[in-house]
């Protein structure tokens, strides 16, 4: 289940209805319910800044690959849910050549063989392409591209392909002229449709889809016969096709050298990776007809590469970024998908430039291929080879897209360039040249020592409180449960240390039969008994580890100690683990006392709400111990995961240095009680221990000249100016990079490449390379159009957290609001009068003067949400909790970050409307997708049950006027006997209402890696009810005005400026 990407737009239902109406109108206008022209559909996909209709959607749907539409935050999954039947037909009518296999009446165009056609729909790789070009709109496109300053540089190579080339530089999601098509008038470019359009792309015109004659490979399945453009050009009516046919394609003579190359360089075959290309090979086998092109052109044997008719020093054209070749957005996502060429422009538009990097994202739709061939890198900047480099001298040399250095291609990596496509002939066996994400198996030069075994060292506080709260039991049970699923199989290592006012070491040597315990009471000078068996192989010592855990559980029952010397325990753990590296998991119940790392309790009640509050969020001086310790851990490849369970003040702000520097993770359970929080803790601990993890890793981001990397956010340590040291890295860590423009950029594209070198749990050293190429534009409207609200919001929040720590919370709140005003003012001032109506949106009829770019129309909503969020709120908040969320917000991925600011709000009751649209019968509970509601008390009723999901907890609101039968159906008891203190979760009852409620909660949980416990809020609860209503951020609350008030205020401020 992929993650949901977005919070809902409050008006999403309305918008959707509107759009449906519009669409119907449009269809009527075009007569006979004919579909909008494909180009329009196309267009709308780009501009489809449809508010993320998450609620309806992504819960139920694995998020498909969304179009790369910039500023389109959510995959347009709604469409997937309900593609109206007429659309399907449209598809057939509008794409006659491509769908001729489905409509037998249409004559098969050129040599599209039936088998190939049959094979085509099965391919997934081509299905995501969305742009479609015909002769009519090519001129328009080229205009648009002119705006973009993207050259149609391909013309010199393909002189005859004039009708198709303009589509070439058309990056999906990148500019097309904004005025031609109304924004989002057709909300239905369903992904399902896309999948039915495998032929949707002009072959010759698309550099990513080379019609390589041989070896045909997966991606070429859609072009079964290598050279026939017509079959792949969906739009033009048949007459046009015929016209195009003679000149629309590369001549056969041009094919000749390619044949020659293939003769001369047969070794390309050996690079094929059979597992990955099985499908393609099957296709090869079943292709019954000889390739007409091969028959037509006799192979010219023995033509050496140097005599090839390619002019020397001729570049292949620069590869245009498209969704297919860019790194998927789940791994790396830019705040602006078009970059201004100079710093002054950037500072003028005020949109923060940056990207989020999520190297271990769980993206099942886009797995990263593992490549074992030579690692080719630029000599100068050390960038890795990627799809956006350009080839010279027929493939003999390549130009680095990061630093423009011209490099020689290594002998064993050489492959000739296919003249028809401008691509290497072996491109399909080189996934690293096809897509901007790849993982190379690193050679020994990338290692400084043998691969480290996955190692987990537990440092457990066994003080009185740990036992009383039930933490210890809970922890031991979950450790035991996860021992079988730890990464690293037979290599994993485990060690345990417990502490109160003394340290207890456990010798787990397998030959002993039972664990030996050593107690060290001397705390001033840490002494680790000189044995090496404190960190042992999990598999060899499995039984002894189990008995050791049991021992700890039984033995510590008697402890009454309240001293907790965390500092000493960590020092000892560092001594034990420093030779190995890995992870230290710390479970801590008290604020640390003891000789090392003692943290005095800071008085906070009196300073809350004042300027001094900031100091409570920063590490105190005594916390330097943890900073130094963190640095020491980081240099020994150790990361620290910290679980805090204190009842009282525990100084999260000081302790969080440890996970922050070492790339670990922080969990905080205020006033932990096992009966209430135990499940959450156990789930999180088990997740921490069993998730796929990369070890002893370093990450570096390389950028083209002119782009500077300013600040990184996340958990890391900067070893040198651009080298992030990450002792462990996993799916729950994301990094946000703030960038700037240091020089005027002269190139057409800038590249940003992330390289993460890590040790896989299986012991291989690997380099994960993520590359993004972004066009440089010179006009303001485009910059606004291609802004990405998700990353922009996340960047603003991270900058505001920095600001809060540097000055004060009120400054941070102000900075957030000012940023919004600045961006919108800049938009207003750069907007030309003509473009205003077509590309801008207003938020409310009452604020007609407040114009927003389509891409950023949710910005004010997020600003309101952020300002009222617990991270920045003016409400008096426990500094521990605030520091915890500040820490988390810097680390969590984009989805969690945005959903924390703007939580999802669902009704847990089925409504009458949720019936099958065709039959009118009520749908079974399992197939209804809940709708997200606007975060406002308008939506709330005392007669309902609602849940609010913010990624950390699920608040379940039960109204007192809710029908008793419904309450009984869902909870199995009546309203009065519901107790928030003991409520654990929904029990299973066999009725529709209960099934539906459980399904919604299950879906809400499936979207987050962090386990969310359910907090029951009864509408008559004096304590929890205000907490819940303060999460309804669109209302006026104590912390600030309502969303509507904010918009009015925004309009005023912008007009003033």
């Amino acid at each position: 289940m992929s993650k949901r990407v977005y919070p809902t737009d409050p008006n999403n239902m309305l918008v959707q209805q509107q759009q449906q109406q519009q669409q119907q109108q449009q269809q009527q206008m075009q007569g006979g319910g004919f579909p909008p022209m494909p180009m329009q559909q196309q267009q709308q996909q780009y501009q489809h800044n449809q508010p993320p209709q998450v609620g309806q959607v992504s819960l139920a749907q694995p998020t498909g690959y969304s179009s790369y539409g910039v500023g389109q935050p959510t995959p347009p999954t709604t469409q997937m849910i309900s593609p109206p039947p007429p659309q399907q037909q449209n598809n057939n009518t509008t794409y006659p050549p491509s769908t001729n296999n489905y409509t037998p009446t249409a004559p098969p165009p050129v040599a599209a063989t039936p088998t190939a056609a049959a094979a085509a729909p099965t391919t997934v790789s081509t299905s995501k392409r969305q742009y479609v070009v015909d002769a009519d709109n090519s001129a328009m496109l080229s205009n648009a591209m002119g705006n973009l300053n993207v050259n149609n540089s391909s013309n010199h190579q393909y002189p005859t392909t004039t009708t198709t080339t303009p589509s070439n530089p058309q990056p999906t999601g990148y500019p097309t002229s904004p005025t031609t098509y109304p924004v989002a008038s057709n909300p239905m470019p369903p992904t399902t449709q896309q999948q039915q359009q495998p032929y949707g792309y002009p072959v010759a015109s698309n550099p990513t889809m080379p019609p390589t004659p041989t070896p045909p490979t997966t991606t070429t399945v859609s072009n079964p016969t290598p050279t026939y453009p017509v079959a792949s050009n969906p739009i033009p009516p048949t007459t046009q096709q015929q016209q195009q046919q003679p000149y629309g394609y590369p001549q056969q003579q041009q094919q000749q050298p390619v044949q020659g190359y293939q003769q001369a360089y047969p070794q390309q075959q050996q690079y094929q990776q059979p597992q990955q290309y099985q499908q393609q090979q099957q296709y090869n086998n079943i292709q019954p007809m000889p390739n007409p092109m091969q028959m037509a052109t006799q192979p010219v044997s023995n033509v050496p590469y140097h005599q090839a008719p390619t002019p020397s020093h001729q570049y292949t054209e620069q590869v245009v970024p498209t969704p297919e070749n860019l790194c998927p957005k789940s791994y790396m996502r830019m705040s602006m998908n078009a970059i201004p060429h100079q710093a002054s422009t950037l500072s003028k538009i005020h949109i923060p430039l940056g990207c989020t990097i999520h190297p271990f994202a769980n993206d099942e739709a886009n797995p990263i291929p593992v490549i074992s061939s030579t690692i080719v890198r630029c000599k100068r900047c050390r960038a890795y080879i990627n799809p956006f480099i350009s080839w010279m001298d027929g493939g003999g040399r390549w130009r680095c897209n990061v630093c423009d250095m011209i490099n020689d291609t290594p002998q064993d990596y050489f492959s000739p360039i296919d003249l028809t496509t401008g691509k290497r002939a072996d491109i399909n066996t080189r996934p690293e040249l096809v897509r901007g994400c790849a993982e190379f198996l690193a050679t020994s030069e990338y290692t400084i020592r043998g691969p480290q075994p996955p190692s987990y060292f537990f440092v457990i506080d066994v003080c009185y409180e740990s036992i009383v709260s039930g933490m210890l039991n809970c922890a031991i049970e979950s450790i035991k449960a996860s021992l079988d699923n730890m990464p690293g199989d037979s290599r994993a290592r485990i060690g345990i240390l417990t502490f109160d006012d003394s340290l207890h070491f456990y010798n787990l040597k397998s030959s002993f039969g039972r664990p030996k315990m050593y107690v060290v009471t001397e705390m001033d000078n840490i002494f680790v008994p000189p044995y090496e068996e404190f960190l042992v192989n999990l598999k060899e010592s499995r039984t002894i580890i189990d008995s050791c855990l049991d021992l700890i559980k039984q033995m510590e029952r008697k402890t009454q100690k309240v001293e907790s010397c965390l500092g000493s325990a960590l020092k000892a753990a560092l001594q034990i683990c420093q030779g190995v590296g890995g992870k230290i998991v710390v479970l801590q119940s008290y604020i640390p006392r003891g000789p090392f790392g003692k943290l005095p309790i800071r008085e906070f009640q009196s300073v809350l709400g004042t300027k001094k509050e900031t100091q409570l969020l920063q590490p105190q001086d005594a916390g330097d111990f943890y900073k130094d310790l963190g640095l020491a851990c980081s240099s020994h490849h150790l990361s620290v995961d910290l679980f805090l369970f204190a009842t009282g003040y525990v100084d999260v702000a000081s302790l969080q240095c440890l996970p922050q520097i070492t790339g670990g993770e922080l969990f905080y359970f205020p006033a932990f009680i096992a009966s209430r929080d135990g499940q959450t803790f156990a789930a999180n601990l088990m997740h921490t221990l069993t998730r796929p993890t990369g070890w002893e890793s370093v990450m570096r981001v390389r950028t083209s000249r002119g782009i500077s990397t300013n600040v990184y956010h996340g958990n890391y340590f900067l070893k040198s100016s651009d080298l992030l040291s990450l002792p462990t890295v996993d799916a729950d860590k994301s990094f946000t990079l703030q960038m700037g423009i240091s020089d005027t950029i002269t190139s057409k594209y800038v590249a940003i490449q992330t390289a993460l070198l890590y040790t896989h749990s299986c012991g291989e050293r690997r380099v994960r390379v993520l590359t993004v190429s972004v066009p440089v534009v010179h006009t303001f409207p485009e910059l606004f159009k291609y802004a990405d609200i998700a990353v922009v919001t996340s960047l603003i929040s991270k900058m505001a957290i920095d600001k809060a720590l540097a000055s004060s919370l009120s400054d941070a709140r102000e900075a957030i609001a000012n940023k919004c005003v600045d961006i919108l003012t800049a938009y207003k001032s750069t907007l030309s009068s003509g473009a205003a109506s077509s590309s801008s949106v207003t938020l409310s009829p009452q604020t007609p003067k407040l114009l927003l770019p389509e891409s950023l129309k949710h910005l004010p909503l997020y600003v309101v949400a952020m300002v009222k969020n617990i991270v920045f709120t003016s409400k008096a908040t426990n500094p521990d909790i605030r520091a915890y969320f500040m820490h988390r917000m810097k680390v969590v991925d984009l989805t969690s970050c945005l959903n924390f600011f703007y939580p999802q709000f669902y009704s847990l009751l089925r409504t009458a409307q949720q019936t099958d649209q065709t039959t009118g019968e009520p749908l079974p509970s399992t197939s209804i997708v809940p709708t997200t509601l606007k975060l406002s008390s308008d939506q709330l009723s005392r007669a309902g049950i609602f849940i609010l999901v913010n990624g950390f907890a699920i608040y379940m609101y039960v109204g007192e006027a809710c029908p008793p039968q419904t309450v009984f159906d869902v909870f199995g008891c009546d309203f009065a006997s519901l107790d928030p203190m003991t409520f654990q979760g929904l029990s299973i009852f066999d009725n529709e209402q209960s099934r539906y409620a459980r399904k919604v909660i299950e879906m809400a949980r499936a979207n987050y890696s962090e386990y969310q416990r359910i907090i029951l809020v009864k509408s008559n609860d004096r304590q929890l009810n205000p907490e819940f209503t303060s999460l309804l951020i669109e209302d006026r609350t104590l912390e600030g005005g309502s969303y509507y008030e904010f918009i009015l205020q925004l309009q005023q401020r912008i007009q003033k400026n």
Partner: protein
Amino acid sequence: MYELSTTGFDYTMLLALLSSGVLLAIVVYELLLLTDLEGNDINSIEFCKKYNKFIMPEYIVQAVFTVWFLVTFRFVLFLLNAPVLYYHFQRYQTRTHKNDPTKVYSHTSKMGNHLMLKLVFYMVMFFIYLFVLLFNFFSD
């Protein structure tokens, strides 16, 4: 105006001259460290270890002489030094005087500017001390 009214060999000035020479040396050393850091020749931990060693001596020397100028009624020299003393005091007070290896990269350019300003200041002071010393020496 006591500075220029002393006659004979002024030992205070001589010591001040020497101290400003030491301060200059420290600042130059810090600048060198900073360029090393920017060129990735040393890592941030090493940089901070080396750099932080010299911060307190620098502050103390500067503070001692500023106070000494006040005690010996050399008000002009005191006033010249006072802003820097205040700046150092502020840094010390807010605990920002020491470099934090985890944050050092985010303000290298700011640090460079600070160091350049300090270099100029100490150099100017050096020549003022020299002038006062020589003026007094030759004034009779």
